């Protein structure tokens, strides 16, 4: 590997990161509680066709018969699902408006989020859809994308404008009844993004969605559906923030990715929901179902940096259905104070010569619990399937926990499955070494953690990698006494 002047320069560049605020925007919020009327009301509010309303009701009926899962290594007071409002929209938002019409307060909020719609516009390489509470507020670059035949819009619009695509694919990767939270989401999802990349098209820019919970006492249930048609390529980034609140906020999203023959999807997440305060009060409950299906020769990479949420329950997965398809999962999960994370992936090998790679980096500090849970399943027909998994844990202090639950189910003798795991602690000698060079302990930890996470950080698009690094630093602040 050469180390060019250019690379050296890049490494020397620095950027600033801003975060943490609350914006007071008037909003239109439903009364609390969940029943068929609310589901119908949401559908109506969104001006949805009848088939969509019915689809939601089916999901609601299934959900009613289901129980909240208990198997994850997390402990929390179960949310009272009748004590949440299932719809909240900033009043000034109108999906038909252009950016220029958007409430200046909202724009200010994006600026604080570091999204800076204007700047992104100028950069000309990131198209952004922003979801505040339950509504997509603005999608930039629609036109530029349309020239390539790329559809990128709020899912609520897609339901009206591209019903044939939505009908064909929604629920095919994550069925309504898949699990408790997915069923709930299917009944009440209020927004999210829809994306379609036509055959043979390389999406010329990063596509990006930012989710934000702003209103108190609301849940956020967004649904993302991304279809990469044959031989297409797209890189997608999802960012999240929520302001600090004392009560727990609920977030239950569903993401479905469809990679048709020869297509490639890179899906990156930087999750920064409010983790709760130092005493473990407040924070977001993040129960997310993310899954991809890969057809022949297709490839899906999930990259996630999880630093926020009080409780995280999340397993971005790949169904490697087509021969020679590839699934990748790169994850950094940081927990501090009283945070709990149970996260990992499932790689389901159905096709021949399918390959999967799992790199998981768990960092635990404070009194937090960090679990990796991964399943590698090789079907009897999946000749020549290969998996490599590496799970590294880094511990800070003596009160936190790191746990690894790797499950392997191989029904084909030709399967090659490798699993490596390490656990390490930040050493006093490493900290002193940094101190001696003028780096204080807090910064030293950030440096060591960034080094530990490097393999995964490197998978993120450049500008987000910088942001993610800062985020790691911020989330571990105060983790040493």
């Amino acid at each position, binding site marked *: 590997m050469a180390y060019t002047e250019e690379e050296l320069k890049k490494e*020397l560049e*620095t950027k600033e990161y801003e975060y943490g605020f609350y914006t007071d925007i008037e909003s239109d919020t439903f009364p609390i509680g969940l029943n068929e009327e609310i589901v119908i009301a949401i559908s109506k509010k969104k001006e949805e066709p009848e088939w969509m309303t019915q689809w939601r009701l089916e999901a609601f009926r299934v959900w009613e018969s289901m129980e909240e899962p208990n198997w994850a290594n997390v402990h929390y007071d179960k949310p009272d699902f009748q004590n949440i409002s299932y719809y909240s929209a900033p009043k000034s938002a109108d999906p038909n408006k252009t950016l220029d019409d958007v409430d200046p307060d909202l724009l200010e909020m994006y600026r604080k989020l570091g999204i800076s719609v204007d700047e992104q516009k100028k950069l000309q390489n990131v198209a952004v859809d922003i979801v505040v509470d339950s509504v997509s507020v603005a999608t930039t670059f629609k036109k530029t994308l349309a020239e390539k035949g790329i559809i990128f819009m709020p899912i609520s619009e897609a339901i009206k404008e591209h019903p044939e695509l939505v009908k064909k694919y929604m629920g095919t990767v994550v069925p309504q009844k898949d699990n408790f939270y997915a069923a709930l989401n299917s009944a009440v999802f209020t927004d999210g993004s829809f994306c379609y990349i036509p055959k043979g098209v390389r999406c010329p820019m990063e596509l990006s969605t930012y989710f934000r919970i702003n209103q108190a006492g609301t849940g956020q249930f967004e649904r993302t559906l991304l279809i990469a048609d044959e031989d297409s390529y797209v890189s997608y980034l999802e960012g999240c923030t929520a302001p600090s609140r004392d009560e727990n906020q609920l977030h239950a999203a569903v993401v479905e990715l469809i990679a048709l023959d020869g297509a490639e999807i890179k899906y990156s997440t930087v999750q920064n929901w409010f983790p709760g305060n130092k005493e473990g009060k407040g924070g977001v409950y993040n129960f997310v179902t993310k899954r991809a299906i890969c057809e022949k020769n297709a490839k899906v990479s999930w990259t996630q940096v999880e630093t926020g949420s009080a409780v995280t329950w999340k397993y971005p997965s790949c169904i490697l259905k087509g021969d020679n398809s590839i699934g990748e999962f790169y994850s950094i999960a940081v927990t501090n104070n009283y945070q709990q994370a149970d996260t990992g992936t499932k790689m389901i090998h159905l096709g021949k010569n399918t390959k999967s790679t799992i790199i998981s980096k768990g960092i635990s500090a404070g009194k937090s619990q960090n679990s990796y849970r991964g399943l590698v399943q090789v079907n009897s027909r999946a000749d020549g399937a290969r998996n490599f998994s590496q799970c590294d844990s880094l511990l800070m202090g003596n009160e936190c926990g790191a746990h690894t639950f790797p499950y392997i189910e191989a029904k084909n003798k030709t399967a090659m499955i490798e699993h490596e795991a390490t656990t390490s602690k930040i050493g006093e000698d490493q900290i002193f070494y940094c101190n001696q060079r003028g780096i204080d302990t807090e910064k030293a930890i950030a440096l060591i953690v*960034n080094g530990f996470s490097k393999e995964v950080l490197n998978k993120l698009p450049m500008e987000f990698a910088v942001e993610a690094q800062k985020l790691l630093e911020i989330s571990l602040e105060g983790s040493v006494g």
Partner: protein
Amino acid sequence: MLKIKDLHANVEGKEILRGINLEVKAGEVHAIMGPNGSGKSTLASVIAGNDNFEVTQGSVELEGEDLEDVSPEERAHKGVFLSFQYPVEIPGVSVTNFMKTAINESRKAKGLEDMPAKDMLKLIREKSELLEIDRKFLSRSLNEGFSGGEKKRNEIFQMAMLEPKVAILDETDSGLDIDALRIVASGVNKLKSKDNAVILITHYQRLLEYIVPDFVHVLHNGKIVKSGGKELALELEEKGYDWLKQETAV
């Protein structure tokens, strides 16, 4: 510049330094020699402010300021540098990134902005040439998989980057082959000036042929038992430490 007065220090309740007196003036090079376990590295750690070691008596002053309540990173900002006998590995952190962080943290402490990338680049280029360090080396994870010699050379590269006032080189010569030793020594000599000082901890006369000390001290059982000029090092090379041990036992 550095004044150590009647310094006593413990580790895990055991007294290791037992009354050290040493004054190092700007422009001077001091060599500290002595058998294994005599407390040389401990002395270096205490000067650098490692709190594994408890100072029970005496003081360390830098330019007239008592360092007792000064944290290790502040000591570094004030110009104390330690080239470690056993440099630690920091996986995934490149030498470049580490140095960038170190320099900018020191600048921040002095109320300065981050060093502009182009100045940093120039500095790195200049110092890596001084120590004949390959550019590729700078992209590698700090000390991870480095040979003994590479680690030591990297320590001196860091010293060159940080331009300390007082540099303590703890057995920097061990692990270096003769060519590397020559490069490192010539680097140290070029960095030497009338405004800074160097303390060389070593077992061997060899290094002192390249970096000529003004004073040589022998540490034994936590005390300086003999001090002299550079010829003392030669004498030690010839006779070993036993005669001194006997002398002090009396």
